[in-house]
């Protein structure tokens, strides 16, 4: 990364300008409104009445709030430890380009073609206890098997997890691009030094890919924070609190036209997103040059 270069500053801001314009046009006002009204009592149309941090204390005292945080933390942990590394593993396999890898790459993209609403509906069918394909496969081996995946605890947590666990194509492609960019001289030098495949991977490939892996972790955690359709169209946060998430609490607030509480929930989501961004940026030293 280049040092701060004063003569480039006008160009830098000029390059940023279109993005800033789109941000200003489509996101700036919504964000201001969300943050501002989170400190008010507001039904969406009347004048918002300032009530300080009442909405936040209310939110933190909710029985489902802590469960939602715990679920998001657990999902994020699974994303960091399994989802992202599955994506990296696939990227490594793609990088070796075994015959047929292009077919796998194309297939991996297919779930992205399906909208998240349709995806949730498909999984509701696959996990259906009666005629879902999963349980019917299991019943070949164990005829008494009966699990209503999305609607009993704790199965529903894992059913929701499964709807995204293996679908890591963005991660694979981002990491693959990073792997391809590693100059071949580096690999060459490593081989001459006698490094084995595993050593090259651990000492060279992974550190050089830390930027894309860090990005993948940030992306997958923010996706867990904002995950909505997969829950709302299947278990609705239930049964009980098993799959409760902040997005469900937010929609509850909207349903009751309590935009103060709904928007306070959104602010908590913003704060979590920015915290993840800063922590992972620091942890993966993403502000420093890779090369």
């Amino acid at each position, binding site marked *: *990364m280049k040092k*701060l270069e004063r003569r480039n500053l006008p160009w830098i801001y000029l390059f940023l300008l279109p993005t800033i314009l789109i941000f200003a046009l489509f*996101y700036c006002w919504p964000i201001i409104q969300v943050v501002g009204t989170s400190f008010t009592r507001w039904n969406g149309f009347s004048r918002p009445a300032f009530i300080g941090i009442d909405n936040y204390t209310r939110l933190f005292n909710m029985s489902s709030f802590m469960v939602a945080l715990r679920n998001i933390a657990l999902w994020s942990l699974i994303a960091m430890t399994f989802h992202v590394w599955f994506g990296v*593993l696939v990227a490594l396999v793609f990088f070796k380009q075994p015959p047929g890898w292009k077919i796998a790459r194309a297939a991996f993209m297919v779930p992205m073609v399906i909208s998240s609403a349709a995806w949730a509906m498909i999984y509701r069918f696959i996990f259906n206890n009666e005629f879902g394909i999963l349980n019917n496969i299991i019943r070949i081996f164990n005829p008494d098997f009966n699990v209503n995946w999305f609607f009993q605890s704790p199965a529903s947590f894992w059913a929701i997890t499964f709807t995204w666990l293996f679908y890591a194509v*963005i991660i694979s492609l981002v990491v693959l691009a990073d792997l391809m960019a590693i100059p071949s001289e580096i690999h060459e030098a490593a081989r001459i030094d006698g490094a084995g495949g595993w050593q090259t991977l651990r000492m060279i490939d992974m550190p050089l890919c830390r930027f894309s892996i860090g990005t993948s972790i940030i992306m997958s955690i923010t996706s867990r924070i904002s995950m909505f359709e997969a829950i709302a169209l299947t278990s609705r946060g239930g049964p009980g609190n098993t799959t409760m998430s902040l997005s469900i609490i937010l929609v509850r607030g909207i349903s009751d036209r309590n935009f103060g509480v709904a928007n306070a929930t959104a602010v908590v989501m913003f704060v979590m997103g920015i915290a993840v961004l800063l922590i992972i940026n620091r942890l993966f030293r993403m502000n420093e040059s890779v090369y």
Partner: protein
Amino acid sequence: MVEKKNPIIYILMYIVLAFVIVVSLFPLLWVIMSSFKTNAEILSSPFTLPTAINFQPYLHVLNTNNFAQFGINSFVIATTATFISLFIYSMGAYVIAKYNFPGKSIFFSLFVITMLVPGHTRTQPIFSIVMNLRLYDTRQGLILVYLSGGMAMCMFVLRAAFASIPKEMAEAATIDGAGFFRTFWQMHLPLARSGLATAGILMFLGNWNEYYFAALLTISPRNRTLPYALAFFNEAFAYDYTRMFAALTLAILPGIIIYIFSQEQVRMSVVSSGVKG
């Protein structure tokens, strides 16, 4: 790239590839298969192949709709929005990845949290903008709104793509005395093309599937997109699985066909541009 390898590693690699293919394709294949079964067959026997290939549900969906027109609308809107926003966001992501400047972290954080802005707060401002520009019920209005759609994802993918370009490689390609824009346009952009392709495909698919704003901002059939048209088959009191799966298949298949086709196109253009990565 293929080197002599331990056969065990090869077997493991193929296990991973096979798993990727199965886990990605089986939901889709299952949907397509179900669309050819009757309601009763879906309910009673999930494994059996359809007893007869019956295109009736498809004809039912296709006959009641002008699908070609909607497909073209979806394609034009999604493609135009994708190209414009790819250009805009690649400039933004480029300076964030390659330069230090005051406000960088703030801008990046703001662009990223757009992913977490709840939809309900965006509806009214967007409707208002589109109305005031007199773009209600036009394809241009939707294109404008779709520019904003993939902001966070583009920032992630493109920033990573530009950051992965080694300085030496870019410098080697640098023409002496090239200006800021030319450095970006002729050196970095071609080197980041795989990231651009990834971001472009994802953004296209996001636009292609978008339903809420399409249904909010357009109304006449000549501006209708595919997901909007299919919403008429998913009404609240529907209980006909066969037709539901047929509509779902019709929503998914064109996207996959376009994806496979564009994948080929992207690769071709990469080859023809002749820049080695």
